[in-house]
C-alpha cells in the first residue's frame, strides 16, 4: 500500500524551461513533506521541505507547493539546468515520528 505516489516515472524538459514534478499522497495524517534528489551511485540528498501549515516554500530555483485538500504536492524548478538531471523522490511523514514514506521517484532529464 503505497501512501506516497509519483505517477510519472520520467520527465524531460529543455534547459531554461520550468520542470514540474508531481506527488500524491493518501494518508491525511502526513504533515511534513520533502523532496530529495538522487544522482547515480549516490544516496538521496535533501532538497526542500514544507510543513502542512504552509502551502508554498521557496529556495532559490526550487519551489514546493502543497495542496492539502487534494493531497498533492509539486516541485517546480525554474529555470531548469542540465545539472538538475537526476531522480527526484517525494517523501512524507506524520505526527510524532520521522517514519518517512517515499514515492517511487521521477527521473528528470534536462536537455541542453
Amino acid at each position, binding site marked *: 500500500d503505497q501512501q506516497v505516489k509519483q505517477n510519472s516515472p520520467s520527465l524531460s524538459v529543455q534547459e531554461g524551461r520550468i520542470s514540474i514534478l508531481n506527488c500524491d499522497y493518501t494518508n491525511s495524517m502526513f504533515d*511534513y513533506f520533502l523532496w530529495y534528489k538522487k544522482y547515480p551511485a549516490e*544516496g538521496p540528498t535533501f532538497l526542500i521541505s514544507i510543513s502542512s501549515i504552509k502551502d508554498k516554500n521557496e529556495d532559490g530555483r526550487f519551489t514546493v507547493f502543497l495542496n492539502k485538500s487534494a493531497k498533492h504536492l509539486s516541485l517546480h524548478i525554474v529555470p531548469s539546468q542540465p545539472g538538475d538531471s537526476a531522480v527526484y523522490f517525494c*517523501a512524507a511523514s506524520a505526527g*510524532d515520528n*520521522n*517514519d518517512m514514506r517515499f514515492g517511487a521517484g521521477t527521473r528528470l532529464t534536462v536537455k541542453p
Partner: protein
Amino acid sequence: IAGITQAPTSQILAAGRRMTLRCTQDMRHNAMYWYRQDLGLGLRLIHYSNTAGTTGKGEVPDGYSVSRANTDDFPLTLASAVPSQTSVYFCASSLDRINSPLHFGNGTRLTVT
C-alpha cells in the same frame, strides 16, 4: 567531511549466509534509519533508531535486525539472506526524530544468489 559512511559498497552473498551492513555517522545525529531501494517502489524503511539504545520496526522489517549501541553506529544484519533481499540499502540519519530531513549514505548494493 562529515556525513554517513556505509560499508561495503557492494556485496554478492550466497543465500542462507549471514551478513552485516555497516553504517557510521559523525554528525552526532540522534536518529538513524535503514532503507532499501527497489525499482518502482522507492525507498522503504526497514528499521529505525530514535536514540542510542532504542530501535524500532519500519515498513519492511522481516529478515533484518539492527542494534544501536552508541550514537554513531547502526549496523543492519541479515541473519539468513534470501534472494528477495537483493536490493540497494541506504543508511540515513536525522538530527531530530520529528520533522527533520534525512541525510543518506551512498548505499550498499547487495545481491543474494
